[in-house]
């Protein structure tokens, strides 16, 4: 595959691995958080940790849209499908996230709810056009990458006066989540999560640009390197982070220059601000209520807002007590620190959201990395 294989070249990877090994100080530990699930997936799928020196550790961050959805939000979607009788359109991974009463969207479908998996919001628009007698709700999740397409869909529905289409908006914001982690007691006061730097988001940054991260670099003295989702991007970003740490710098650097500019995509940003505005507060799985961390649909497009149209009231629901997703999303725990990892909680029967999406820390480790646990503790 041209333009992809170049970023997965094994020989270049070996060269980078040697360079990183030569640059790290042997008596120092390097703890870097990759914010995005896309990076988590790439690191696990290509076996990047095997190419890193033992004193470089990657901590998985909360940047997996499915993982950070709290139970209460899934409950709203299930209610729409089962009680309001809508056609609920959703991205695939969301189908399996566990919700209240042992339900998930997939189980709601089996109980007669009309839940449909879509690849893009445009599919949901088409379903609305094809079913004029039915309410069609798009369950909109994701960070800044998936927000502009939802904005386009709302505008399109408005232009077509597609009155049976609405959006259950659960779009969240990356900078707020990073800030929340940096402000958490584990990072700030207790030092239980040593964080020496971030690998910054790839696709999110194509939209918001690299500038929003400058605050973190300056205020919290944490280096940030924005990197693409290919494994060589990740390796190169790690090398850049190691250099910043060694030189005592804390700056925003951009490894993903082929797609990310300082200002980002102004057209997409304008679209988003035309359709959405900040929510005062939004519950994240793992992080709890985070102020100004998510978007809602503006008054002007209120009729396409499923929360208003169906008078939905949000009810927070606590996670399963044994599930450590919260701590894992904050980088406080590793998947294997969770008591139910790989026993009660598996991809077939996930108890927490991190075991659902392939970008989730638990699913990535279960699917790609569990052989390492037994190597560490022989049977």
């Amino acid at each position, binding site marked *: 595959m041209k333009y992809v294989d170049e970023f997965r070249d*094994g020989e270049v*990877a*070996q060269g980078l691995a040697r360079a990183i090994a030569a640059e790290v100080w042997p008596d120092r530990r390097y703890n870097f958080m990759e914010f995005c699930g896309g990076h988590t997936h790439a690191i696990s799928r290509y*076996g990047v940790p*095997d190419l890193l020196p033992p004193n470089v550790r990657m901590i998985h961050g909360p940047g997996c849209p499915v993982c950070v959805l709290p139970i209460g939000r899934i409950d709203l979607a299930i209610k729409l499908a089962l009680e309001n009788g809508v056609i609920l359109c959703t991205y695939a991974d969301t189908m399996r996230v566990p919700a209240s009463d042992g339900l998930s969207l997939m189980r709601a479908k089996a109980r007669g709810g009309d839940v449909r998996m879509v690849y893009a919001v445009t599919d949901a628009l088409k379903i609305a056009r094809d079913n004029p007698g039915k309410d069609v709700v798009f369950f909109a999740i994701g960070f800044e990458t998936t927000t502009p397409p939802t904005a386009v869909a709302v505008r399109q529905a408005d232009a077509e006066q597609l009155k049976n289409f609405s959006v259950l908006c659960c779009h969240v914001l990356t900078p707020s989540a990073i800030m929340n982690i940096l402000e958490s007691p584990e990072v700030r006061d207790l030092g239980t999560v040593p964080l020496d730097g971030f690998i910054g988001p790839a696709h999110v940054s194509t939209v918001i640009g690299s500038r929003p991260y400058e605050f973190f670099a300056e205020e919290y003295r944490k280096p940030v390197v924005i990197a693409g989702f290919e494994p060589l991007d990740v390796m190169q970003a790690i090398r850049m982070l190691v250099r910043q740490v060694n030189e005592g710098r804390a700056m925003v650097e951009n490894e993903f220059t082929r797609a990310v500019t300082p200002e980002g995509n102004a057209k997409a940003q304008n679209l988003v601000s035309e359709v959405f505005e900040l929510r005062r507060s939004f519950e994240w799985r793992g992080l709890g209520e985070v102020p100004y961390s998510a978007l809602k649909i503006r008054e002007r497009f209120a009729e396409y807002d499923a929360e208003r149209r169906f008078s939905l009231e949000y009810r927070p629901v606590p996670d399963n007590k044994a599930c450590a997703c919260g701590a894992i999303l904050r980088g406080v725990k590793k998947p294997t620190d969770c008591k139910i990892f790989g026993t009660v909680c598996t991809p077939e029967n996930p108890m927490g959201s991190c075991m659902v999406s392939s970008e989730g820390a638990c699913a990535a480790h279960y699917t*790609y*990395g*569990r*052989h390492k646990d037994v190597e560490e503790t022989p*049977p």
Partner: protein
Amino acid sequence: MSGQVKKGYARPLDIKHGCVDMSHGGGGRAMVQLIADLFAEHLSNEYLAQGNDGACLPQGEGRMVVSTDSHVVSPLFFPGGDIGGLSVHGTVNDVAVMGATPLYLTAGFILEEGFPLADLARIVESMAKAAKDAGVKLVAGDTKVVEQGKGDGVFITTTGVGFLPDGIHLSGNLAQPGDVLLVSGSVGDHGMAIMSKRENLSFDAPILSDSTALNGLTAAMLASGATIRVMRDPTRGGLAATINEIAHQSGVGIHLEEAAIPVKPEVDAACELLGLDPLNIANEGKLIAICAAEDAETLLAAMRTHPQGQQAAIIGKVVEDPHGFVQMKTKFGGRRMVDWLSGEQLPRIC
């Protein structure tokens, strides 16, 4: 005399414009006509012609092998094949990878009211061709019709019968540390061909399904004299699921080399676009084999000389591992597990 129906006259089945209706499953003349004009027309042989409730068959040599498979693929016609051919290949292959010679098939059809007879004729013709190519005879069949909305065009269940010569014993629990793993060709073709035609996904990719019968290839492999321990066709769940099954059954680990696994560039690209792993994608004309290490080159040569095994490759080896993990050295240079697929990647793939 005008107005009188001629004796013995029956209006011919309108295959061009007609549709399946409830009477075609009713057990009356309409059903008999559908069977005679459409099914028997294409599939006839001496056993089907017996016209009894069951076929009376001569036994082949060795032990009998039976396998059954239901086919619900959507769409019914896809690039490189259709449900008719697929329903023959799927079952023939299940019998063939046991090491047996498939001889007979039965077929059960569930037809939906309103299904065009022209499409049904295409499907039956395709079955007839697939059966002829594979050297098997369709010896018994059944047709049921369900009301509109209660089916989806046509579902086909086939059962295959074959005979396994004495001395051949292949089984998923026979893989031993040191053995070598081979695949007969590129993986992921069937699944991605289907996916490229799905209503909400359709993309233009020149990907054809690999749907084909493998009994010629298996016969050539067995004739090579190599000590084959396991053969299996990696259908739903793809290569990853099949290899995990064998590792689990045999209580061994398996190590794969990503660089050695053949994947067509167009399949690789389509998987990339949709966020899928070619190792999880279904195949309908590929097999994997595990053989003793010293016979690997002999077996590989035998596979490559057969038209269905030209792209065959050695892709890994069996190792001792009480956990039964399947691991892969990535092209990137790292190592990762290759796990079963969780959830449903794509419903109704075969």
